[in-house]
Structures are given as C-alpha cells and as structure tokens.
C-alpha cells in the first residue's frame, strides 16, 4: 500500500530529480510562465513555493540558500528584486497550474505553471461568466463535505465561509480557487 507516500519520483534518480526541479525553478523565475507535463508542474509547485517564501526574507543568508538551488545568478537577483516585491504579502499560493490536455506523441498531460501575480490578462466577459460558476460551485462542494453539509440550507455566502474554514486540509491550489470564488462574490 502506498498510503501517505508523498511526492513523485518522475522516473528519475534522486540527483536527476533534483536537477530537474532546480532547472524548472530557474526557468519559471526567468520566464514567469512555463509549459511542462502535469506531473512535473505539480511537483515543481511543491519545490518552488517554499523557495519564494524563503526569499521573502531578504538577507545574505537567504540569498545564498536560494542561490544553492537556482542555476543562474541573475535569476536569483530577479527573484529577490522583481518577483518577491510583486508578490507582496500573499500568504502562500504563489503558483498556478492549469491543465492543457494531451501532448501529441506520448499523450502526456500537459500543464502551464505560472506565477499568480504575473498574469494580467483577464477576459472582458469575466463579470458575467464566472458569476454563475461561483454560485453553483460552492454548493456542490459543500454537499460533498459532511462537516459543511448541515449548513447547506443556509445562504450561499455562509456556505462559502464554511468552506474556507475547512479548506486548510486541502491543497494550495484549491484554497486559491476558493479565495477567487469568494472574491468574485464580493465584487458583485
């Protein structure tokens, strides 16, 4: 049984995996958005987000720690001087993984991994379309959760709150989605 076994081996040896993740981190900080396989994107997310958290504290020590895992000196400077200031006091969840579908050739699931604060292009229809989604989604999720199920009959807004409280158990990505949903609600 593989209960509670974390992480992916990515079909690599330990040193190869380390090299891959460091290369992915370097590319992401350099280009702000990278396209890779879904498995690598998800693994890289758990590798890169702690790096960014570490970089929020700008000291010589922190810079050296980061530099030991980033392959290019200039990228380390980019991280401390450009990326961290833009991220501000976001409490984690700096990265976003969006699925793209399958790659021709080996049918691998592809995904885009990007820094959340560096995607400025939002659609004009955003106000009308995700509203309906935001309304429908929290209810479905609330019904799935036994803890929240008791409060399903109350107002939507309260449902959203319940979900946010229980969200700590889930992955960063889910939490981020919830926040966006509730943020959209407040907008309307």
């Amino acid at each position, binding site marked *: 049984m593989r209960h509670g076994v974390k992480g992916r081996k990515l079909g690599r040896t330990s040193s190869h995996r380390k090299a891959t993740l460091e290369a992915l981190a370097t590319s992401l900080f350099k280009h702000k958005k990278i*396209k890779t396989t879904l498995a690598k994107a998800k693994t890289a997310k758990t590798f890169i987000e702690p790096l960014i958290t570490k970089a929020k504290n700008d000291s010589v020590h922190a810079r050296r720690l980061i530099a030991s895992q980033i392959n290019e000196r200039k990228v380390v400077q980019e991280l401390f001087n450009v990326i961290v200031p833009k991220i501000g006091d976001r409490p984690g969840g700096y990265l976003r993984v*969006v*699925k*793209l*579908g399958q790659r021709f050739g080996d049918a691998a699931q592809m995904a*885009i991994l*990007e820094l959340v604060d560096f*995607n400025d*292009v*939002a*659609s004009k*229809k*955003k106000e009308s*379309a*995700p509203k309906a*989604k935001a309304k429908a989604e929290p209810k479905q999720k609330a019904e799935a959760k036994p803890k929240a199920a008791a409060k399903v009959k109350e107002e939507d807004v309260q449902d959203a709150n319940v979900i946010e409280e229980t969200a700590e158990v889930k992955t960063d990505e889910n939490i981020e989605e919830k926040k*966006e949903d509730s943020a959209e609600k407040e907008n309307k």
Partner: protein
Amino acid sequence: MPHPKRKISKSRRDKRRTHYKASAPSLTSCSNCGEMKLSHRACPNCGYYAGRSMFVPES
C-alpha cells in the same frame, strides 16, 4: 499448472467484449469564445481558463 479446459469461442470472447466501450469526452462550451472544450482544461482555441488568458494561440 492448471490450464483452461476449452478454447474460448469467438462468440464467448466477443460477448465479453460487448461491455468494452469508449466513453464520450465531457465537453463544455468555452466561457470566453464559445468553442467546445474539455472541462477543467484551458481552451485550445483561445487559451483562456477561468477568465484568465493562459497562453496566446499561434494562429
């Protein structure tokens, strides 16, 4: 070691396989451009997902 006593006839084999079916992909229309797309994936036509542009299509 034990072996099957009889060869499975074409009829039995094929009857078993009547339950092997391909399922239709779950498509939804893109909220940005209206094209049909796979759910939970960025739209291959316009590159949008959840109201954000994830990539700019080539053409």
